[in-house]
């Protein structure tokens, strides 16, 4: 087992080294005479003293958008994208101690690897080409402290983004060099023997040149975990020292005028303690490694004579290796490798009065979509598949400002996947702003997803799962009404009512003929519901954001969907404390959920983060307590598990020290 690759002796030396070199305190106040000497670039980076950092609700956006700004990301100690996203109205996270799964508005299918969520970093697609998986937990290619702003767009957005944007888009707006202008180092220690080191550095050299660089590495021993399903004659139910995790990630970005070059590498190694896929319980050796790579060149032109061009070229890679230890020391390896390259081009035209037209085309060649499954000794191969594919999409969107109060947003997208006939996805949104403080939206849209190579071709040789090459794309149609009201200077209140209808849902089912799992198209599935959300900020740093969601789901036979809570509640708040300390906390609760074989009880969890005032030298200390009440709660498991539900983490602590260099 490889678990912690990090050498702490070396890190300690680095910390001492950093201390020696640290110089300036954070947040000094600049005087008028100093400001007069600064360049425009620099002035635009100065923070306004005491300004409300209220993230603007995106009134013109043809969808409901939740924005989590950098301050909130920082003040709550979210450890990964998944934790931050779980504060979004109507969203919820489940975890199987390997990956985190994002459920949206009652939709989180067991056996679905986040393929209905599109993950973007700075607008670039990050779902891999083989499993279509959006990695949002520690396995994600990015770290949350590299993110300047996290946006969640709920509802089908295929009309712009194409496949995978069925239930929502997660866009992580990454830090730019100018947001750092220097370097920052962080060190964490926490429960379950977890340790992490992170480094951020960046500089805006001048208005044309900017660079940003980030590194992070983490290792955790993991807790001993008890699974009652394995408390039997052969085992005592304890998986000891089998929940370790280690990851390393790097990200870099260079900007030359209108050109931007970014690159990202990540590798995460996770031991699996809960014996998935009928592996031997309590034995080390069952683990997965997920690795991502992306290089991207983007051009973002200036608006000139009413025309603006943007284009992007990218090359991405993903590698998954699952090692599964079976009884009698039989090792099975499950591998997936994907490589893709592509590009997109967008033209924004504003020459017509009151119209903003966007035309785009994008294409992606999935040059490698390899899946292998084999036993090591004796060597037996069960799967060796490589089905490359190609996608082409074209879209047009018109933002028509009919009058100062009315905006009509119409979009149409055409998509062609090399294995399927072409699909057109329309979308329309009518936005009415009767006053500066109210926005009403009516939205209808459709989105689609072609089955991925994993869902179609994966076959483990008759153990658990078989292929279904005849699988068809699924479609979603969505209707939503949204109202958003500004209350006073710093408050807002919103209501959303929605209905989602999915046709030909790609779902994992058991074939009664041979007892094997397979993905197949299901008939109609529906979810509908209502979200209330509100937020308010006060002078002095007090802030509160909350939401309450009620949701009804039904499968074709009228039954409720699995892992689909009827109620979700969230409360996120920040309080300034004495002597410059601040407290960030969030409570999340959900009602009971159906699992594959029964019910998982509802629960509520409180997380808290205490952040110190700036230390001498500009550093900062933060103490996080997660699941403060040590609440025992469960998430429904997929059919990969013997367990019907999987126990989640109890109370955990984390201490973070960060330091500008």
């Amino acid at each position, binding site marked *: 087992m490889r678990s912690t*690759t*990090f050498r702490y002796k*070396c890190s300690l030396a*680095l910390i001492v*080294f*950093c201390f020696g*070199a*640290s*110089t*300036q305190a*954070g*947040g*000094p*106040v*600049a*005087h*008028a005479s100093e*400001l*007069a000497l*600064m360049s*425009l670039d620099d*002035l*635009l*980076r*100065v*923070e*306004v*003293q005491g*300004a*409300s*950092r209220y993230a*603007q609700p995106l009134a013109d956006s043809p969808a409901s958008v939740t924005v989590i700004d*950098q301050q909130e990301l920082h003040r709550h100690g979210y450890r990964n994208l998944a934790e931050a996203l779980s504060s979004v109205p109507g969203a919820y996270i489940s975890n199987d101690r390997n990956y985190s799964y994002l459920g949206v508005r009652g939709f989180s299918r067991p056996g679905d690897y986040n393929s209905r969520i599109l993950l973007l970093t700075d607008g670039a697609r990050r779902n891999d080409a083989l499993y279509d998986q959006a990695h949002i937990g520690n396995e994600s290619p990015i770290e949350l402290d590299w993110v300047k702003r996290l946006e969640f767009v709920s509802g089908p957005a295929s009309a712009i983004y194409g496949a995978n944007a069925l239930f929502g888009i997660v866009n992580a707006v990454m830090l730019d060099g100018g947001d750092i*202008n*220097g*370097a920052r180092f962080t060190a964490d220690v926490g429960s379950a023997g977890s340790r992490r080191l992170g*480094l951020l*550095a960046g500089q805006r050299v001048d*208005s044309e040149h900017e660079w940003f*660089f980030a*590194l992070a*590495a983490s290792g955790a021993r993991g807790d001993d975990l008890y699974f009652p399903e394995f408390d039997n004659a052969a085992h005592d139910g304890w998986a000891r020292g089998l929940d370790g995790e280690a990851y*390393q990630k*790097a990200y870099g970005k260079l900007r030359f005028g*209108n050109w931007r070059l970014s690159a990202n*590498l990540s*590798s995460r190694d996770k031991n699996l303690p809960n014996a998935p896929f009928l592996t031997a319980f309590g034995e080390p050796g069952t683990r997965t490694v997920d*690795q*991502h*790579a992306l290089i991207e060149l983007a051009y973002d032109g*200036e*608006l*000139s*004579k009413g025309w603006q061009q943007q284009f992007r070229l990218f090359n991405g*890679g993903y*590698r998954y290796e699952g090692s599964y230890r079976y009884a009698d020391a039989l090792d099975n390896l499950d591998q997936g490798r994907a490589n893709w390259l592509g590009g997109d081009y967008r033209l924004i035209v504003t020459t017509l009065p009151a119209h903003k037209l966007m035309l785009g085309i994008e294409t992606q060649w999935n040059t490698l979509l390899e899946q292998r499954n084999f036993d090591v000794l004796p060597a037996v191969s069960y799967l060796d598949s490589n089905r490359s594919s190609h996608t082409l999409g074209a879209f047009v969107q018109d933002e028509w400002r009919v009058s*100062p109060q009315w905006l009509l947003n119409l979009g149409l997208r055409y998509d062609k996947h090399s294995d399927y006939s072409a699909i057109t996805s329309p979308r329309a949104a009518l936005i009415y702003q009767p006053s*500066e403080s109210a926005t009403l939206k009516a939205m209808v849209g459709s989105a689609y997803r072609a089955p991925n190579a994993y869902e179609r071709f994966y076959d483990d040789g008759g153990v658990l799962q078989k292929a279904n090459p005849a699988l068809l794309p699924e479609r979603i149609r969505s209707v939503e009404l949204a109202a958003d009201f500004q209350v006073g200077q710093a408050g807002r209140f919103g209501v959303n009512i929605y209905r989602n209808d999915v046709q030909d849902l790609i779902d994992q089912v058991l074939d009664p003929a041979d007892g094997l799992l397979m993905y197949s198209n299901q008939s109609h599935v529906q979810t509908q519901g209502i979200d209330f959300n509100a937020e308010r900020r006060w002078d002095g740093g007090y802030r509160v954001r909350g939401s309450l969601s009620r949701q009804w789901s039904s499968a074709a036979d009228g039954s409720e969907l699995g892992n689909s809570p009827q109620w979700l509640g969230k409360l996120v708040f920040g309080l300034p404390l004495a002597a410059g300390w601040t407290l960030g906390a969030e409570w999340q609760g959900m009602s009971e959920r159906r699992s594959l074989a029964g019910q998982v009880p509802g629960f509520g969890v409180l997380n808290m983060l205490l952040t110190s005032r700036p230390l001498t030298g*500009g550093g900062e200390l933060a103490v996080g307590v997660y699941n403060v009440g040590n609440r025992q709660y469960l998430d429904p498991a997929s059919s990969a598990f013997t367990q019907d539900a999987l126990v989640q983490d109890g109370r955990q602590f984390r201490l973070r020290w960060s330091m500008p*260099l």
Partner: protein
Amino acid sequence: MLMAIGGFWRTLLALLLMVLTPLAHAQRQAPEPELKAAILVSMLLFVDWPARQGRSPDRLTVCYLAASPVSTALAQLGGKLLKGQPLQVERADAAALGDCQVLYLSPTDASGLPRLASSVPARGILVVGDSPGYLQRGVMLNLEIEGGRVVFDIDLRSARQAGLTVSSKMLRLARHVTE
């Protein structure tokens, strides 16, 4: 392709730390009126005015109508040299703006905006403001606060109508450019 190596990461981290330590900047803060005034003035470097008779070319005149925190901060910047011309900040009457090259409108000028729009000479005056919605009401360059920092929007069409040239460098820094 992309496989990570433990030792490589460690070395890279150490090297990077050594390279970066000389860089030391922390996020600065400033009071809102002074910051806005400094931004407005530094923007004037990126604007070119049409040559015109009868206007003294040896100084850059910024006018305001009513006293406000930003206009007070602007006045404190009077005398600063911009492209060799001293900055002159003066209070002006809405009916007599002939000497102004820049007109700053404070939030309290909102009620007079429609009338004002007709009295501003068609050419040669850059109208700037810092109030939400001013861009739609005739202001060419409008500051707002977003995410705790100052951002600005430009109405390029009206700036061009006034004969002003705005450099592309500034357009790139803008949040929105209306054409």
